[in-house]
């Protein structure tokens, strides 16, 4: 029962290291159950057995026992040293990347991840990696602290401005694995979500060569009907706005811009197209293709009143085709 309570729902094991991690975690859970029962069980039994209202209740005069004290100093010390050594051992495996690891550069910024590959490709929030090959990330931040966390891989590493940190993993399970930002980084901290997309050899080859690949399911799951329908791979032709919606999701726009009018760090995009907006300096403009393009490529140029100039530039991160699709999508948000 305790195993179910504690780790029946541990995240998927996306790497071998995750398996080693789970073994150590299980050991600690069982050890804790033992000591919990020892202490709290002892407390409950003594409280029942020696309660004051029992017949002939009388306390015995005992002030201590050096033998018992020696035992409960020595036994935990030995156990703790074992736990330490085991933990350090797994930690070393988790942190020492093999020399032949495939390297990807990672830049964190409020509130998205940018991934730069050696073949020159750049992606936002989606990290494409090959399966069964060590991948090493060399990470830094453009603004504040972030932390790169993939629960399925049991790895986490802070991403620090002004220095490089690294993390590595070797995915053994295909599909999408969630990336969380685990170090508080401001307003949209909880919206800074990406995914590691672990690809089988053939797909990886295609992706590396710059080709379109079909939809990838969540790790451990089959493709859902919706994913198939929206992929375009099944033969269905997407509208331009539908393609824009995919760009909107892939570039992390949703971390700051809602499409339903709710409040986020950036202005909502619901119904903005074709309407006038007021800027912090009192100026006004009509939201059209050119204003939106400017806002994506040079976000600080004209900032809507009531908002902070915090949006990073997407110049070079969005292709002309993607930009056109994105604008069509924004226009469709009534």
């Amino acid at each position, binding site marked *: 029962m305790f195993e179910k309570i504690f780790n029946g729902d541990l995240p998927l094991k996306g790497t071998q290291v995750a398996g080693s991690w789970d073994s150590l975690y299980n050991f600690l859970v069982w050890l804790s159950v033992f000591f919990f029962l020892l202490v709290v069980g002892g407390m409950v039994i003594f409280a029942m057995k020696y309660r004051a209202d029992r017949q002939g209740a009388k306390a015995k005069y005992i002030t201590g026992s050096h033998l018992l004290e020696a035992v409960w100093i020595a036994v935990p*010390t030995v156990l703790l040293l074992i736990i330490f050594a085991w933990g350090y051992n797994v930690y070393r495996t988790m942190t020492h990347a093999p020399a032949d690891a495939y390297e990807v550069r990672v830049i964190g910024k409020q509130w998205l991840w940018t991934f730069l590959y050696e073949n020159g490709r750049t992606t936002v929030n989606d990290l494409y990696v090959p399966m069964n090959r060590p991948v090493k990330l060399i990470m830094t931040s453009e603004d504040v602290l972030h932390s790169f966390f993939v629960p399925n891989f049991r790895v986490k590493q802070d991403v620090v*401005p002004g220095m490089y940190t690294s993390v590595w993993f070797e995915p053994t399970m295909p599909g999408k694995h969630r990336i969380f930002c685990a170090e508080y980084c401001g307003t949209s901290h909880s919206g800074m979500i990406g995914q590691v997309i672990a690809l089988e050899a053939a797909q990886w080859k295609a992706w590396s060569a710059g080709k379109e690949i079909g939809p990838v399911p969540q790790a451990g799951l089959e493709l859902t009907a919706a994913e198939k329908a929206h992929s375009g791979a099944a033969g269905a032709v997407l509208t331009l706005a539908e393609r824009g919606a995919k760009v909107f999701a892939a570039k992390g726009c949703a971390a700051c811009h809602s499409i339903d009018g709710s409040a986020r760090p950036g202005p909502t995009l619901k119904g903005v197209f074709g309407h006038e907006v007021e800027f912090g300096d009192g100026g006004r403009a009509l939201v059209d293709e050119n204003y939106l393009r400017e806002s994506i490529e040079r976000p600080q140029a004209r900032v809507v009143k009531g908002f902070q100039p915090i949006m990073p530039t997407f110049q070079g991160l969005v292709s002309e085709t993607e930009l056109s699709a994105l604008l069509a999508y924004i226009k469709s948000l009534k």
Partner: protein
Amino acid sequence: MHDYLTHTRGLRSWLTTLDHKRIGLMYLFTVLAFFLLGGVFALLIRLELFGPGRTIMDAATYNKIFTYHGAIMVFMVIIPAIPAAIGNFILPMMLGAKDVAFPRLNLASYYIFIAGALVASSALFLRGADTGWTFYTPYSIRTNTTATLVLAGAFIMGFSSILTGLNFIISIHKLRAPGLSWSRLPLFLWALYATSIIQVLATPVLAITLLLLVFERLFRIGIFDPAIGGDPVLFQHFFWFYSHPAVYIMILPAMGVISEVIPVFSRKPIFGYKAIAYSSFGIALVAFIVWGHHMFVSGQSELANFVFSLLTMFVAVPTGVKVFSWVATMYRGRIRFNAPMLYAFGFLQLFTIGGLTGVFLATLAINVHVTDTYFVVAHFHYVMVGGAIMALMAGLHYWFPKFWGRMYPEGPARVSFALLLAGFNLTFFPQFILGSQGMPRRYWDYLPEYTMLNRVSTAGSWFLAAGFVYAAVYLWRAMRAGEPAPANPWEANTLEWQTASPPPHDNFATAPVVTDWPYEYRDPLVPASASRSLP
């Protein structure tokens, strides 16, 4: 004869009092007021997390609310609660003294605390603060909220903590009653002594750190901001160099309370007096050299991680000594189930889970996955709330007759205890599972798969709130109209019980003389106090 409550009258006589008992109670009511405020913020946090996405507030507001909750509970509630509130009242009486060594400094400490708390709270009425109570750089440098005020407030409150620690250390050295040798010192005082050492030595580091951060915000001096040559990780080292020992400022006095309550209600000497006393110092010592375990994924070197993980393991040894000794004290006792003892049981249950999950976090590999997730949130709430607040409740009930000369009612006390214990486990146990599943902390929004456990946790928070509100109601009533309390309702041996309830202004009618250690509980009771001078 006048007691300390009727010695002089009027608000002014309280505000200018040099009496440690009144100062202790002023701290107590201040702390409880902030506890109410911090508790309301906690309920708002849980309410927002009732479902994914927006429930009652936007992300920016949520970030402020969890910052207020953390900063208030740490700096204005748990750090001062037991040492400054209960400690002020009880320490001189346990020593058999008339007051602390420096009564005027004691009052000054209280007003410094108030000044700091007001400065920090003023941020609430301006642009707030959204840095989290940890103020991690460079976010805390860049945020356009009024974080500077919170930093300045915490800086000021630090001096109150330092001066109180100093006052306590000197009082324990110089004001012990004749015969109260070190080997007869009650364990609550050993715990307060160890706490005071941490307060005096660690708090200045926090003061300097916060001051540097204020300067960084105001003058851009380039200490912590990498954009101008600073190092953001350096801030974490400075911050935790204080804030890790501060965890023990919160828990050591709590352990001291439990060490008093368990023998009294078991009618037995404390098991392993010396080991418990030394373990307080063991914990205080190790407290200073384990700060890096907060930073295993910060970019800190592997060597540092190795050393900090190893050292952190040794926190568990003296902690285990205490826990095992408390349980052993109950063995073959004659156990009474009064409210202080119930809260001590609650403390043991919750603190054991808090302590054991601390071992998970000290283990390097395990830490990597669960750090900065709800696992950590659950762990420190089990220690800070399950430990420190349960012990505060134990202490409030235990010394209630001494504070007011009236008894609290046992029946309602059991009800609130049951609500608090159930509510606490319901609120925080699911958070361990959420954390092991990977839900990061400080998340305003979360994935749908985390909904169920978050709902359970939120429901638990309502039980907790009900338990605290109910306790406030019956304690308030008992304070004004409870049964009159005898001088020593628990038949305890420590000196504060060898005088009237409530005590006279000068604590003791005649100076007490100690002839035995305080845990000389023999059954049937031989009044150990027979050899002490009674008023």
